[in-house]
């Protein structure tokens, strides 16, 4: 569609005029992604909103523990010039905080509450962001952070069933499976922990 390409150009021009773009990605013919500075977020969003991108499709965060950053993502959409625009920005992982976009998009209220609940990001400007929304009586670090291990939490709190049935037939003298397991464990210890996939 030629039309959508024009729209892409339009968005690019609009965003590049407004702010410095740290990174730009063409995801497909109707989707664009920009990484911008945190301080510019409000400006970019309001410019886009006034240009017709008035639907906030999604707001959330991504945890990058290696960089010690949270990435906050805003996805905007314009139904008349159909281009999805991802606006991303990285904020510090320690005491994360980013100003609420409620004045621009009132619909962001619950998205922000959820992001606070699951990542611990503060949204000053959103009156209710600290209230619990989905979790109840949560007593651990925000669960969507990468350093939270739900499996350990589950093991700690919810016992798993121990079935009485034993289908195994074992032979005292036969240790082949144990030996295998030991060897496997040993081999895995040898790994230098090279580049993880």
């Amino acid at each position, binding site marked *: 569609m030629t039309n959508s390409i024009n729209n892409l150009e339009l968005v690019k021009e609009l965003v590049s005029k407004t702010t410095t773009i740290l990174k730009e*990605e063409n*995801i*497909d013919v*109707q*989707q664009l*992604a920009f990484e911008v500075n945190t301080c510019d977020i409000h400006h970019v969003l309001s410019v886009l909103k006034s240009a017709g991108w*008035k*639907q*906030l*499709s*999604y707001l*959330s965060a*991504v*945890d990058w523990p290696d960089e010690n950053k949270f990435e906050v*993502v805003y*996805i905007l*959409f314009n*139904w008349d010039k*159909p281009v*999805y625009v*991802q606006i*991303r920005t990285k904020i510090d992982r320690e005491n994360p905080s980013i100003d609420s976009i409620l004045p621009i*998009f*009132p*619909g962001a*209220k*619950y*998205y922000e509450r959820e992001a606070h609940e*699951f990542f611990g990001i503060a949204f000053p400007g959103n009156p209710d962001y600290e209230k619990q*929304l*989905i*979790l*109840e009586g949560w007593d651990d670090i925000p*669960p*969507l952070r*990468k350093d*939270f291990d*739900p*499996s350990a939490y589950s093991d700690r709190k919810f016992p798993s069933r121990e079935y009485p049935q034993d289908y195994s037939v074992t032979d005292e003298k036969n240790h082949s499976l144990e030996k295998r397991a030991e060897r496997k464990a040993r081999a895995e210890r040898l790994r230098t922990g090279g580049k*993880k*996939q």
Partner: protein
Amino acid sequence: MKEMKLFLGPQHPGMHGNASVHMFVDGDIIKRSYLLPGMLHRGFEKQMERKLWVNNISLIPRVCVPEPDINEMSFATAAEKILKLEVPERAHWIRMIILELARISAHLMAYGGLGGPTGNYTLMYHAHVDRNLILDIFEKITGARVYHQYIVIGGVRQDLPDGIEEDINVFIDDLERRLVEYRDLGIDNASIVKRIKDTIMLPEEVVWELGVTGIGMRSAVNKPYDVRKVVPYARYDQVEFEVPVSDYSDARARLDIKIKEIQQSIIIIRQCLAKMPEGPVRVKPDRGQSMRWTVPKGYAYAPIESSRGEFGYYMVSNGGTSPWRVGVRGASYPQGLLGIEKYLPGTRIDDAALWVDTMGICSPEIDR
């Protein structure tokens, strides 16, 4: 007068799904209300990060129970966008058939759900009979009635079984013939029109304020704002269909659009069955066995038109065997949370259940 506290759900016949609407009422008028979500919270987004790309297909349909296929489709297209993977032609058409059948099933369920709040159980029974037939068709195609796990990254899991085209044709012909009966029992029924006319309004500015999409939006803004038209996925740009719209969004308009959309879905399915080419249905995203499939680094958002509106997965991959982050944009998120908080007050208690029903609120996709 003193405010009375009432709660609709979680265990309440008027509440679809496990969520609770807390209401503070004065007489019959709701003064303050909010949705208490989280009863269906399973930590989906966390779970997805912990599962392999291939394993995720068993998890994702569970995000939205009444219409599981949109999850599969959205997940698959998001991954395909990052992979830049070209799906076989036939798979696109099969996907469309599945998605449209799922849309019909979800619409029937929602329309039959009208029987709950208004008490017209016959409508509900009839709708569920037809929905059950769709589930039977799904079972034949995919091997399961509800959680199909059929649309996978790179196509569909297996080809359509022999003779299923005929089953689908028989069903949609029958359904089309009987859509008028659904109108008779529901939106053309005088006693029900009394309940749904000029009530539960959704003005255009509210749509933009909340970010409501789907039928809610189209019934208010009178424009065909349908993801299938605007950002076509699969082969929706190659089929002809109309997007029913309205400029006055009361409960009746939205239900009317639901029935019209069932009609359009039937038309789409017919075209799909006619245009579907032969050929392979699946490509593997990567060499190697499934547990070692990887998706390159990238970000993608894949919007899908669900029965309730724009549904999308925001996917981030860091090149590993599992997604790095999957965010789910539930279609009912705006109206379900902020909508109930801001616009349910002012209506009557009687309307609360109907409000939840006709706005298309699906609690599992809010909670995840």
